[in-house]
């Protein structure tokens, strides 16, 4: 099989309708004289026909009702399932998550909508900072915890993500409008960073766990009656979910 040579790329491009004008004419001329080229083209066409034969039946099947319902429902009501998938990953790791998962999400506030962006902004501004990524270093963790808890007005524990391979660098205070918010920063052995944004929840309403891709960054956010949480970093979703679960569990140790 001679498919892997540079010359044959043009033949693939021809078969896939990528060639125009002179380039196309060149291949047509080659095909007129070269039996091997004709054979390769035939193989490509047979493969295409075989793939269509194998998979085209799906196009004529009735679309499952569950899929149609997903597409027609409003995202927040509908996001239940996608969110539940994420949460089920979480639930495998931690018991007692039901209170977190089985809430009524109808009243999701604007806070929840804006939350991923806050974490993204924090990551963008501080995530690449070399000399001053944080105000208070990890070696003063107890102070950091007390200080941020006091400023935010909600007592919380700084989560330990070391089991997930992330060490605390430290944290800082952030303004969120005229209110204080806290930022915790973590880093893994390859210097990949992760920020965790926390603030008090003025709305006193909770919202579903949400995972979103924003270009190269992923955010995870969730809202509890007392506090709002959002994480952001260059991790994949698969990496982020266990981190979010560990953070959720860590914060929960408060009080």
């Amino acid at each position, binding site marked *: 099989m001679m498919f892997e040579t540079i010359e044959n790329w043009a033949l693939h491009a021809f078969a896939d309708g990528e060639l125009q004008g002179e380039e196309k004419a060149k291949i047509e001329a080659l095909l007129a004289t070269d039996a091997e080229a004709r054979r390769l083209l035939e193989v490509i066409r047979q493969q295409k026909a075989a793939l269509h034969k194998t998979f085209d039946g799906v196009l004529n*099947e009735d679309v499952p009702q569950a899929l149609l319902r997903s*597409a027609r429902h409003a995202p927040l009501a509908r996001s239940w399932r*996608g969110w539940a998938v994420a949460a089920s990953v979480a639930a495998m790791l931690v018991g007692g998550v039901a209170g977190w998962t089985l809430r009524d999400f109808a009243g999701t506030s604007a806070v929840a909508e804006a939350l991923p962006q806050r974490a993204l902004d924090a990551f963008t501004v501080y995530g690449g900072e070399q000399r001053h990524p944080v105000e208070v270093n990890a070696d003063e963790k107890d102070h950091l915890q007390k200080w941020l808890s006091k400023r935010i007005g909600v007592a919380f524990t700084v989560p330990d993500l070391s089991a997930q391979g992330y060490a605390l660098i430290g944290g800082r205070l952030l303004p969120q409008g005229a209110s204080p918010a806290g930022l915790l920063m973590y880093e893994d052995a390859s210097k990949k960073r992760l920020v965790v944004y926390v603030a008090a929840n003025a709305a006193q309403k909770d919202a579903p766990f949400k995972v979103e891709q924003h270009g190269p960054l992923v955010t995870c956010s969730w809202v509890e009656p007392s506090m709002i949480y959002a994480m952001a970093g260059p991790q*994949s979703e698969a990496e982020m979910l266990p981190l979010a679960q560990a953070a959720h569990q860590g914060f929960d140790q408060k009080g």
Partner: protein
Amino acid sequence: MVHQDFASELVKEIPRLRRFARGLVSDAALADDLVQDCVERALVKQHLYDTARPLRAWLFAILRNIHVSQWRRNQHFGVMADVDGLEADEPAVAPAQEQNLSVTLITDALDLLPQPQREVLILISLEEMSYKEAAEIMGVPIGTVMSRLSRARSNLQDLLEKRGTTVLRVVK
């Protein structure tokens, strides 16, 4: 809020999303789960959709990203098919019809292709995406699309020919 136009355009794309998903994963139920996750994510992210670009390619990219992250996770947990094992206890399937390109043979051969080759083949040979669209969907340069594609076609052909002769030997 779901923008109604967006939702109805999305519904129209579902059959194509289902075929694409079926090409990526052979199990029909898993493929539909992938479509469902894709639809859900598309609705959540609809504000990020650039209406100047084709909706189908945008949806394909979402579906593909979900698939790749699930695939990586499965690979991590060792759920990947054991290629050597598959070769060893090859079932004596019915003799191949039509130049070894029966549905079963194609499905089996696709399962043996490395994931990046399988996806490029499905995107271009089945879904008839342009090289440029495929490059955007997979997040790689066009040159990578072309080299993966030629390797994928070459490997697929080798697998089909090998499988075909094996089957013939068994039948004899």
